[in-house]
């Protein structure tokens, strides 16, 4: 296998690795052992304690240092004579342009977010450099290959952007714990400790908004002479008591819902808590980490606290913020590594959950949800890194016929734990690698240019330095290196409605959006629409574009041959986290139609998760027995088109 020509190709190769985290550490090690000699590695992160359980090139003493640099030094210890260039930088920096990408024979991604993945995809397309993309979460993982002109690009399949929730669900009618977390983190925490100038919907739920707003401004503003404990109690009573009472006055809302219960400190903590806190104060003064848990003697982050414990934590955490972290107040954003912030958000979410009859959660779980933490283990990363190197070697040898996407499964499917699939062909209507225009439905009279730039151009299309053209007229541009007066002018324009721009954007307008850095552009057809459903279309605009592909072959490979037609996976889940995270609905599972459709329902319906335990266990072996396993190819999760064919 490791033939002479293979070794030559490996030795000569110049490889760009993006990411030196969970997959990155394993990948760099396996590349070095496999004989790679010229590796450029980019990572903007520094090392954290929670990395050390799997990012094995790092030690406790490295915490705080650049991942790329420490990873290089660690690998040079066992392969001293190879060339590894570390770069502590963001892959989206302009210095990493198309010319830079062209220097490499292959790009290997070990990234942790959709945004950077899309960016690298576009640069690889522009530079015509093959890309091996990867992701893991828990025991699941995948490796995909993207070669321009031969396979699909990373964006040929739609990628859901992170879930957003309708404002009213968060402010008034939470039904799941995650809603309480979002409320505690994005509204309450931001209101109390964040930038005072930021808009905040904390109080948008009363029928007569004006009255409530005036009242609340007074409440949240702490007078300089106000006792921190009294202030904390006042906030508690306001957000968990008064606000709920106000919400209850909107009787329409509660006709088909359970009414929440207003909570006040005097009811939840009838014993005088304030004295208790006072007596504990001294014990916490010299601790390095300010923590309400330790000052209250709660140790286990796995425990689910009672309502009164949560209330004590809430009051204590708020007091500690005021007394010990006064200088942070006003410019804090939630950080999952900020212990006191996690405690505050956990307690606030639990109190709100308690009020709405939603089950409470431990700090450990709340932290995972609030911080969008994706679970990660070393073994999966090691396996995925091995698979990346195998694909990279095929690319370097020009062996494009045998390229595979591989899925690492937790439960075997047709005896396979590692399932290779032939790469999909490019989606002919992909707005990234083909030139298909997108369609945007938007209210051109009320939507501002800012909404369009933020929600569509940056969030949905993943551009960073966009240029927006209406025919030959430049409407807007963003990015570094613009003149001050130009920037000022654009700032004014941003708050204009689309139809009121100097070059009005109305139904039928075609906008060209371009990112010069990514060498990527696309056209958007604008269609005016008056109304949007706040629940289903919280953005107030709908981008439709690439039609879900219909005629593509997804193949499982058997003995180098393959056949069968089916839809490729439609849904893909994206998470931001330490390591990775992309996992596509695994193809190739052989299931009965009824089960298939059930699975698909689950994918699109996130509501009944916790109660969702009805399905019978399906043993992989029992799913459907077939003698010709090796020769049968199946796919996929679209039941209508699921077919199987027999070779020979």
């Amino acid at each position, binding site marked *: *296998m*490791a033939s002479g020509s293979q070794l030559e190709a490996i030795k000569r190769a110049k490889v760009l690795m993006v990411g030196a985290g969970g997959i990155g550490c394993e990948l760099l090690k*396996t590349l*070095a*052992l496999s004989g790679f000699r010229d590796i450029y590695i980019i990572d903007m992160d520094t090392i954290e304690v*929670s990395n050390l*359980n799997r990012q*094995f090139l790092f030690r406790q003493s490295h915490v705080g240092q650049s991942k790329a640099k420490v990873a290089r030094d660690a*690998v040079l210890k*066992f392969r*001293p004579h190879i060339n590894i260039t570390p770069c502590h930088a963001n892959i989206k920096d302009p210095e990493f342009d198309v010319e830079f990408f062209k220097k490499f024979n292959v790009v290997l991604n070990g990234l942790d977010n959709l945004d950077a993945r899309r960016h690298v995809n576009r640069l690889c397309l522009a530079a015509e450099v093959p890309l091996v993309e990867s992701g893991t979460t828990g025991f*699941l993982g995948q490796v995909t290959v993207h070669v321009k002109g031969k396979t699909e690009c990373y964006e040929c399949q739609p990628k859901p952007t992170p879930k957003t929730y309708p404002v009213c669900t968060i402010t008034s009618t939470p039904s*799941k714990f*995650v809603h309480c*977390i979002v409320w505690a983190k994005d509204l309450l925490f931001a209101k109390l400790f964040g930038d005072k100038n930021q808009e905040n919907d904390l109080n948008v739920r009363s029928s007569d908004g004006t009255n409530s707003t005036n009242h609340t401004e007074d409440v949240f503003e702490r007078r300089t002479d106000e006792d921190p404990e009294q202030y904390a109690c006042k906030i508690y009573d306001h957000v968990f008591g008064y606000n709920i009472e106000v919400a209850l006055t909107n009787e329409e809302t509660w006709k088909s819902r359970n009414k929440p219960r207003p909570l006040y400190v005097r009811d939840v903590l009838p014993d005088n808590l304030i004295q208790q806190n006072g007596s504990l104060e001294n014990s916490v003064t010299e601790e390095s980490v300010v923590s309400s848990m330790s000052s209250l003697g709660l*140790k*286990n*982050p*796995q425990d689910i606290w009672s309502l009164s414990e949560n209330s004590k934590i809430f009051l204590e955490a708020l007091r500690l913020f005021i007394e010990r972290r006064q200088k942070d107040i006003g410019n804090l954003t939630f950080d999952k590594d900020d212990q006191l912030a996690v405690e505050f958000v956990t307690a606030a979410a639990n109190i709100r959950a308690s009020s709405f009859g939603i089950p409470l959660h431990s700090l*450990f*779980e709340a932290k995972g949800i609030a911080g969008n*933490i*994706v*679970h990660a*283990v070393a*073994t999966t*990363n*090691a*396996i995925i890194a091995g*698979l990346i*190197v*195998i694909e990279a070697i095929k690319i370097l040898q020009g062996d494009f016929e045998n390229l595979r996407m591989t899925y690492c499964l937790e*439960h075997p499917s047709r*005896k*396979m*734990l*590692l399932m290779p699939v032939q790469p999909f062909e490019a989606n002919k209507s992909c707005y990234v690698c083909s030139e298909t225009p997108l369609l945007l439905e938007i209210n051109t009279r009320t939507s501002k240019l800012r909404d369009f730039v933020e929600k569509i151009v940056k969030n949905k299309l993943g551009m960073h330095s966009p240029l927006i053209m209406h025919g030959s007229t430049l409407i807007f541009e963003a990015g570094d290196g613009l003149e001050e007066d130009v920037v000022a002018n654009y700032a004014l324009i941003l708050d204009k409605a689309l139809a009121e721009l100097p070059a009005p954007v109305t139904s039928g307008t075609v906008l060209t959006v371009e990112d010069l850095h990514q060498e990527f552009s696309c056209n958007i057809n604008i269609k005016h629409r008056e109304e949007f459903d706040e629940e289903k279309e919280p953005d107030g605009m709908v981008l439709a574009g690439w039609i879900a592909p219909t005629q593509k072959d997804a193949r499982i490979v058997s*003995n180098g041959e393959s056949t069968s037609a089916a839809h490729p996976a439609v*849904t*893909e*889940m994206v998470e931001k986290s330490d390591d990775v995270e992309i*996992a*596509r*609905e695994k193809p190739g*599972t052989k299931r009965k139609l009824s089960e298939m459709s*059930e*699975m698909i329902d*689950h*994918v699109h319906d*996130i509501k009944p*998760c916790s109660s*969702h*335990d*009805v399905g*019978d*266990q*399906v043993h*992989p072996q029992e799913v459907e027995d077939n*003698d010709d*396993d090796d020769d049968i190819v199946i796919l996929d999760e679209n039941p209508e088109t699921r077919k199987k064919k027999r070779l020979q």
Partner: protein
Amino acid sequence: MDGEELTEEETALYDRQIRVWGVDAQKRLSKAHILVRGLNGTAVEFCKNMVLAGIGSLTLMDDRSVTEDVLQSNFLIPPDEAYYSGRSLDELCCESLKDFNPMVRVSVEKGDLSQFDGEFFDKFDAVVLSCCSLKTKKAINEKCRRRPRRVAFYAIECRDSCGEIFVDLQKYTYIQVMSSYVAPCLDYILDCYKHGCLDTSDASKKSDGTAECQLNYPSLEEAISIAWRDLPRKVSKVYFAMRVIERFELSEGRNPGETSISDLPLILKMRKELCDAQSLGESYIPTSLLERILAAGGKEHPPVCAILGGVLGQEVIKAISGKGDPLKNFFYFDTADGKGIIEDMSNSSTS
């Protein structure tokens, strides 16, 4: 599981993996003791994974000295002769592995494992063998099976671009999650997790519908004695190739991996004998596959080491934590087709 809580340090270090397997599994891991005999690249990958996972202790046995082949797939030893000469492989690996996680005790055991009496194995929850002869594997497997408390047995073999894992958990009982949460629908799981409604705590899983499952594993001797015609259809070709090579090495008195392409004529003869005796068409064990394995000798392809070491790591974690469907009882990976396949080869499966 009751008992001591994890320390704050452990909770911080293991945060991401506790989110995968839960606190109880982490506590069980921290009390587990594992023995690894034979430190080739694949075993080293496995050791790394175990030390990172936070097991209680890891005992290493391999008194060979460092060679080119060893260094080729080993990331624990700097290729500096002044550093490694005069020291055995287990000592060198031990020194390096200790550094990965100060909470895990890593040590070296000297002597010939096949001569150790059965009680020695009582100290361990799992025993992993690599680069051992078939005879040694069988003997140690039997010793493990005769212990009063279960000692999980694993044998791992990597020949360049393909490899094999054998698992013997004897009588194994574990908790199987019954909800469709285990249905292999990644998006669903991720979605639930992301939105906070996938509960990883034990309590919820139990109420969610779990079942106790029992599996009976055959010994290595029993498993490889099953007549080939009685095996499930379409067994991985690597299985047969490994049996041929193994038989060859045994009959020639060679150590595992002491082969070269010049052994091909004898190997083809061995293949014919075995295939005739087992009524299997010779073509089912492709000559090209045997050539590939022979030519590799003791060499390993590092990406394959990472994959096998990763899969074995997950299996040992499952066995120790009692969570998740364990592999029964062979696993194969071959870069030629890229598949990672589980084969169940026990008499019960063929009846």
